[in-house]
């Protein structure tokens, strides 16, 4: 039944699950949850909406506050939509080597951008945002890396939707960033399917975006508990792009770089099973990477090594 929505915020979540029987033929069924179908085109709409509404409900966020967030793109774009509809100005701290489409989208949605040094990667954006927020308490920083509303959005949304749609889930695969998707969705799926294997696909970063002077500059998001992951698998840019091309070629599905990594891991883990159901979470579509060189590049790794992709 078709209905109307009162705002885009009401259209966050309830994303479709599609079977990838051409990408992974055989007895194991693989489904992708298409988070690119959220209003701004990524899974981060769930997180942005949940973080802002939780802060409003607790009284921590009041009208007139300015929002600040470190993000290499998707969270910023999602926050920009939520902030616009709720009337908060937003500033995003973005690594200088984030993709041009993301930067442009942020500006079009009305966010201000502060750049952190590209060679410091996303850790540099986190560091700069934390310093800015500390220096000026008038900022409100949702801070997806430490905000419990992030995994909760996936527990109540992503995970609950998958559990309602399928009567069996043997493996969950999602990309590892803040850990929010894996923690929240994994926890909810374990309630319905106690033996589910929760698997993280993790990007193998190019040397140029690691940007840490020492290991002490490293960062483990407070919401991420690696103990709760059953598998954590590194995926190269080249493997991600090969999977993206195969998804497009076999299923007609244009997915983002992190979804390529997730699809790659889903295929590996499906091959370990003789039957069952693998669910992968595709965080966004590939629309923001249309102009990227990697689609045609002969040396995929080289074409991607200087950019923060997810």
């Amino acid at each position: 039944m078709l209905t109307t929505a009162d705002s885009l915020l009401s259209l966050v979540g309830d994303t479709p699950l599609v079977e990838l029987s051409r990408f992974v033929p055989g007895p194991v069924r693989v489904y992708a949850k298409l988070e690119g179908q959220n209003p701004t085109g990524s899974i981060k709409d769930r997180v942005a909406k949940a973080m802002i509404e939780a802060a409003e409900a607790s009284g921590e966020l009041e009208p007139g506050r300015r929002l600040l967030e470190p993000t290499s793109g998707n969270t910023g774009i999602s926050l920009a939509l939520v902030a616009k509809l709720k009337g908060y100005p937003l500033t995003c701290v973005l690594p200088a080597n984030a993709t041009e489409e993301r930067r442009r989208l942020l500006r079009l949605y009305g966010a201000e951008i502060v750049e952190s040094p590209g060679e410091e990667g996303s850790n540099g954006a986190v560091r700069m945002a934390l310093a800015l927020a500390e220096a000026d308490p008038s900022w409100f920083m949702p801070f997806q890396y430490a905000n419990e509303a992030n995994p909760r959005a996936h527990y109540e949304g992503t995970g609950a939707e998958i559990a309602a749609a399928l009567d069996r889930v043997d493996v969950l695969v999602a990309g590892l960033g803040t850990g929010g998707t894996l923690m929240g969705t994994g926890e909810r799926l374990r309630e319905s399917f106690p033996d589910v294997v929760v698997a993280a696909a993790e990007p193998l970063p190019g040397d140029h975006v690691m940007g840490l002077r020492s290991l002490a500059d490293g960062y483990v998001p407070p919401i991420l508990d690696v103990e709760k992951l059953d598998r954590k698998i590194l995926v190269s840019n080249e493997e991600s792009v090969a999977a993206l091309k195969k998804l497009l070629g076999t299923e007609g599905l244009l997915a983002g770089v992190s979804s390529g990594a997730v699809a790659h891991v889903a295929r590996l883990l499906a091959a370990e099973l003789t039957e069952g159901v693998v669910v992968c979470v595709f965080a966004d579509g590939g629309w923001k990477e249309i102009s990227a060189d990697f689609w045609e590049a002969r040396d995929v790794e080289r074409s991607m090594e200087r950019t923060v992709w997810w």
Partner: protein
Amino acid sequence: MTAIRIPPTLRNEVGGERQVEAHGGSVREVLEDLARRYPALESQLFEDGELATFVNVYLGGEDIRTLDGLDTTVDGLPMILLPAMAGGC
């Protein structure tokens, strides 16, 4: 012999090499051998005998923290060391 890929952050400690080699049957033995060859790595890799918080070690592409940790059998698989990084867009 296990081939170990070294991240830029730790290359000074191994004389600038991108990849080095070390011996051992378990991840712990390989990392201890590595720290013997390059003593400056010791304090970077270990905290109280356990793997340091901000180091991720992958064997055959899988994080040893979701395998058997430092007790994971190496089995001829290549090893990658990476710093813990914030991701997540």
